[in-house]
């Protein structure tokens, strides 16, 4: 069992918010490792926050348990391109237990695909779409996985390290309101 740092109680802070938290409260990452010894690759810390690295096949199973453990707020989903692999990081917070938890998935660079969490946390919907849009990670089981910030038909995923910055892309709005992307600007010409 690991005891990790808590924020310091301020001198003017109401008692009660923190008094509920015992000093030896269980580290949620360690708890997950005990519950799913096969699914959790390792448990550690990400600067004061408990971190668990999960096998990608077991994400939905573990995430369901994470929700049961009281982590009701999904702060952010981050996709990172490490050239040889992709990592997807989920930052959770629990309003009831006042705890943080970080889950991390490591994906193959050739086929980055992981299950969607949008069925458990509705807020994951747009965050996953954004990760798909900018980093190019596919979320299987997502109800509406399409680009959110960039126009449909955009070439490449900008936050990948191999994204070609020299391609110029021109976007116009077509007659039915759909986006038209071209690389030579022909769609900008008026006819």
């Amino acid at each position, binding site marked *: 069992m690991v005891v990790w740092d808590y*924020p310091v109680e301020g001198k003017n802070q109401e008692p009660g918010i923190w008094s509920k938290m015992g000093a030896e409260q269980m580290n949620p990452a360690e708890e997950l490792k005990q519950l799913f010894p096969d699914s959790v690759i390792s448990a550690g810390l990400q600067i004061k926050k408990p971190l668990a690295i999960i096998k990608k096949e077991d994400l939905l199973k573990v995430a369901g348990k994470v929700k049961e453990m009281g982590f009701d*707020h999904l702060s952010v989903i*981050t996709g990172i391109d490490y050239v040889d692999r992709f990592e997807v990081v989920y930052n959770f917070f629990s309003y009831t237990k006042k705890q943080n938890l970080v889950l991390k998935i490591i994906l193959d660079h050739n086929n980055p695909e992981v299950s969607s969490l949008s069925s458990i946390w509705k807020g994951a919907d747009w965050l996953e779409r954004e990760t798909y849009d900018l980093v190019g990670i596919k979320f299987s089981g997502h109800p509406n996985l399409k680009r959110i910030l960039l126009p449909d038909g955009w070439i490449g995923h900008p936050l990948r390290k191999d994204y070609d910055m020299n391609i110029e892309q021109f976007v116009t709005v077509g007659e039915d309101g759909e986006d038209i992307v071209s690389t030579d600007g022909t769609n900008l010409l008026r006819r």
Partner: protein
Amino acid sequence: MKTDELLINMGPVHPSTHGVLRFKLTMDGEIIRKCEIVMGYLHRGTEKLGEMKTYMQFVPYTDRLDYISAFPNNYAYTKAVEELAGIEVPLRAEYIRVITLELNRIVNHLVMLGSLLLDLGASTMIMYGFRERENALQLFEMLCGARMTFNYIRPGGVREDMPEGFIPKLNEFINDMEKRIDDYEQLISGNEIFMGRMKGIGVMSTQDAINYGMTGPSLRGHGVNYDIRKLEPYSVYPDLDFKVCVRNEGDSFARYMVRIDEMRESLHILRQAVDQMPQAKPVSLAKYGIAPMTGASTAVSTYFPRIFTPPPGEVYSRIEAPKGELGFYIVSDGTIKPYRIKIRSPSFCNLTAIPKMVEGLMIPDLIAAFGTIDVVLGDVDR
């Protein structure tokens, strides 16, 4: 009776979308059956830009995210870098930061109130709101020369100390503002038409609000007693006395009232910060020759080297920005540039809840609910 559904396009250029945002509304008569949001018209690729700038160079880009309240953006990024590299900041700088953050919270809520009332058809409040905002902007101008994009809070501290005469002007603003908030309440809160437009509109259950990832004042209007300033105290907030403003109704009116209460709390924090702030210690110029070197330690900033390489690692750091939880996820690979910056913007995540919130309402109610979510499109699209 079953009628044909009609697709209505609202935006991207529409006065009540506060920028460029497009709603695709499937209407059944006057009732919204489905609301789809199209965004990205203001996408500037800030996260990609961050990978090409050094840690210090990225600070001005954060100003352009939520341009109504730029100090919290500066601070959220700065806090992430400081947490990553373990930089200690002088106490006086922390107090100056808190003063700017809380002033900016008031400015943000004034703009929000003004534009909300303007969207509902009452143009008085935006005049009043912008009148008081002007006073705050003059304070910002005094502090750093800029009125909206400050580049003032930076890793290691703040850019320069407060000028002479800032504190008296600030006190004047606080005393003035105290009365103004009462005026606003008299003008708006009890107004029959306003209440009719706001009460019971855009209702969402607490569970749903949390599940959709809403944060900040919008979530506190749903009865969640949470505030990152209390939960994960940062800066000097643990030494300041303030309460978390919560309303339980979960409708547009509750979200509006939270803003009014928060402005009062911000004034309360400002008063304490001014009282408790340590005096500036004179910095010996002799140590540096004629003038202080760029990046040198002063009373309000610690030494921050020009070639700054934090240790490899990653951090997610969040603050309670006026609109909600603003977080920066920074990955460092030990070089002078960040490997990856992810911005968790409150506007983007709060907007997720809108389609669910407005189902079954009418278009004027969409505007009322959308106004109380308080979205800035620079923050949504990044």
